[in-house]
């Protein structure tokens, strides 16, 4: 009998919880997940330095505790002060695997971190995978985070990220969520130091009966901090998506600015698209902006594409292809590229290699 059949299950009831809650009847405040609870007794594993315990992670404490209890040795990487690491740090998570990673980017250092979930998987394999990545970016550090998630229709993936950014640290995040039975992603970034900045671009696609749940929190504590969050997704068939974003302009963060924008293309009659874009403001000398556009391909766009010989279906699939091609074009390592290629869902991609 397979190990997973014997494994007891654990229900995590408060996952991806938005910092500010709203009406419970909307069922948009959080998500409940069932995960395996394999016990580990009598082993001694390497855990991250205690400094990482203070880093808030997007999926919440319950998931952090669960990953720490499930992962084998935690992986700790430190980029020395002033060093630019050319080779990306790759966290590759396969079906049923759980990874716990901590990255310390010392002052003035630069690092690229890639989380690739789903590489090498075959559809049909059930299981739960998870990745927990905590990053501490010291003053003037540069962090490039790439997250590629594309797991099978029978699989569940949990991806939780926490970043603490000090003075003048810069973080850019590229998220490509390409589907999976259930994909839950939480991202939290604490812009603690003055002029710290995060730029986040998230592109997602979900079809069939896939569930995608995203919770992203940016806490702007330092003066003149900046956050730019952009979401762009396509939902097809009977996919269900929940997106919670929070820009928290904390008291004392004078001069801070937070901007967030979302564009959702809804292509399926049975799609459920929930969005909770929150701005919390406890300071006057700040600016917070949010914009969202949710809809289908406009008649004008369709007419234009029809005049070029594309049917409605062709036109709609053009948007999906564009997303996958963008993911492939920007894949920073073979593991990330493999996630896209495994998850093209029948898309025939034609990428023009950059010179």
């Amino acid at each position: 009998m397979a190990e997973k059949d014997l494994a007891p299950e654990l229900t995590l009831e408060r996952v991806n919880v938005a910092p500010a809650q709203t009406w419970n009847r909307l069922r948009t405040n959080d998500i409940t997940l069932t995960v395996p609870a394999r016990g580990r007794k009598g082993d001694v594993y390497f855990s991250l330095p205690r400094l990482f315990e203070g880093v808030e992670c997007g999926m919440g404490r319950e998931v952090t505790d669960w990953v720490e209890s499930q992962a084998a040795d935690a992986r700790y990487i430190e980029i020395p002060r002033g060093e630019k690491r050319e080779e990306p740090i790759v966290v590759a998570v396969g079906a049923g695997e759980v990874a716990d990673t901590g990255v310390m980017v010392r002052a003035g250092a630069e690092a690229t971190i890639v989380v690739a979930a789903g590489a090498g998987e075959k559809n049909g394999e059930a299981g739960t995978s998870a990745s927990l990545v905590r990053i501490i970016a010291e003053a003037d550090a540069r962090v490039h985070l790439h997250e590629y998630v594309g797991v099978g229709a029978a699989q569940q993936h949990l991806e939780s990220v926490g970043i603490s950014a000090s003075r003048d640290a810069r973080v850019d995040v590229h998220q490509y969520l390409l589907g999976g039975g259930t994909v839950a992603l939480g991202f939290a970034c604490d812009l603690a130091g003055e002029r710290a900045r995060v730029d986040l671009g998230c592109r997602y696609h979900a079809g069939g009966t896939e569930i995608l749940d995203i919770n992203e929190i940016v806490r702007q504590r330092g003066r003149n901090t900046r956050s730019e969050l952009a979401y762009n997704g396509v939902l097809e068939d009977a996919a269900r998506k929940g997106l919670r974003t929070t820009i928290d302009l904390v008291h004392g963060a004078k001069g801070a600015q937070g901007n967030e924008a979302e564009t959702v293309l809804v292509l399926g009659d049975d799609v459920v698209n929930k969005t909770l874009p929150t701005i919390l403001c406890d300071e006057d000398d700040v600016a917070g902006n949010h914009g969202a556009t949710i809809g289908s391909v406009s008649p004008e766009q369709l007419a234009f594409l029809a005049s070029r010989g594309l049917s409605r279906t062709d036109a709609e699939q053009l948007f999906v292809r564009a997303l996958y091609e963008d993911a492939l074009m920007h894949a920073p390592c073979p593991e990330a590229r493999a996630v896209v290629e495994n998850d093209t869902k029948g898309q025939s991609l034609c990428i023009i290699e950059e010179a």
Partner: protein
Amino acid sequence: MSDERKRTQVADVDRSLYDFTKSEEGYERYDDGLTPEIVRAISAKKDEPEWMLEMRLRALDLYHARPMAPNWGPSIEGLDLDHISTYVSPKTKQAKSWDDVPEDIKDTFERLGIPEAERESLAGVGAQYDSEIVYHNMREEVAEQGVIYTTIEDALHDPKWEPVVHEYFGTLIPPTDHKFAALHYAVWSGGSFVYVPAGVTLPYPLQSYFRLNAAGAGQFEHTLIIVEPGADLHFIEGCSAPKYYEANLHAGAVELFVKDGARLRYSTIENWSKNMYNLNTKRATIGADAKMEWVSGSFGSHVSYLYPTTIMAGDRGTCEFTGITFAGATQDLDTGCKVIMNGADTTASVSTKSISKDGGVNTFRSSVVIGRHADRARCSVSCQSLMLDDISRSDTIPAMDVRNATAQVGHEATIGRISDDTVLYLMSRGCSEAEARTLVVNGFANPVSKELPMEYAVEMNNLIKLEMEGAIG
């Protein structure tokens, strides 16, 4: 110089306009707290049909059984129902002439400008004082068109209208909706019943004004409005109370039925005192080709939970919500709206403004739900928040749930402060800093005030001016 100018400006506004009290001597006041005996006593006093008493008692059980949501909304810890009287009635009967209203109550409403407004620009007026309506009147020519504007109590005693009340009452906001909806149905008293026959257009608005004079009391009026197909009504609701150092409670309910092709504009200027817990519920359902317009100004109360809801059941319906909330010291105002779009080709537009100062907390909370059958539904939500100092707070929590591939939803929210450049420019043109800021705030609020009849826009601008007193320095 600037201080002097500021004082001159503030002196223009008479603070005693709202903050005056009248003696409760001779009033009938039920014991504090909430018991089946009190509920039965209210029902018996109103000589209600049996079904209403049963509904009240069921609601009382629901109130005790339902918890408050533990994870959202401002704290209401300061509200203790054991120290709130749910029924306080002045010793008077409902009058049709202001001359028949007791002198102290008449003086109250005259200071609030209600009789004058009635003479000049209203089709009818209802005035509630604590738990009971003390004055109700409507112009003859409006009554001749078949319009009914009366109290729920009177409608329940009219064999023609009792079945109508029975059919609609508590159906749009059921007692099971939330804890304070249940409380409302247990102890409701006063309010208005309006029926506008098919095709009738009222040339002037109807207005109900609610005044809570008693300290440590609650007001639980119920407004039930039915606008038949093709009819058109503007209804204005005003409310105020003097300030006390103990909690008062307002838990009213407003149920609006707007039938096919009808239009209803529901305007509210809320200026409860800052010891008030305002836990009000308002909901409208609109038919095909119908239009619902909400205009809402929230200035008062200590804590507010207020989210007018529109259920767009028919095709091609239209909903507009225009609101402004001003939170000053000691205020935590959680306001917004809900739109549920179920009809095809429906259109909704939400535009809100909020202003926070002196430690006030503003939360804009909304939900837009577009159902599976709302083909080609269109909705736009715009929320702008202005922070006037760094001890205040403003949160924006808009939820969207879209389940139709042909729907279009747009949303935008901004939070910011008055720019120094703007203030400097206005000061270079001779304004004091206080005047400059008040000008900017008035301009910010202008899209809301222009939606109100002139008298109420003036009142709203006065309230802003009053609230802006001491905004700097």
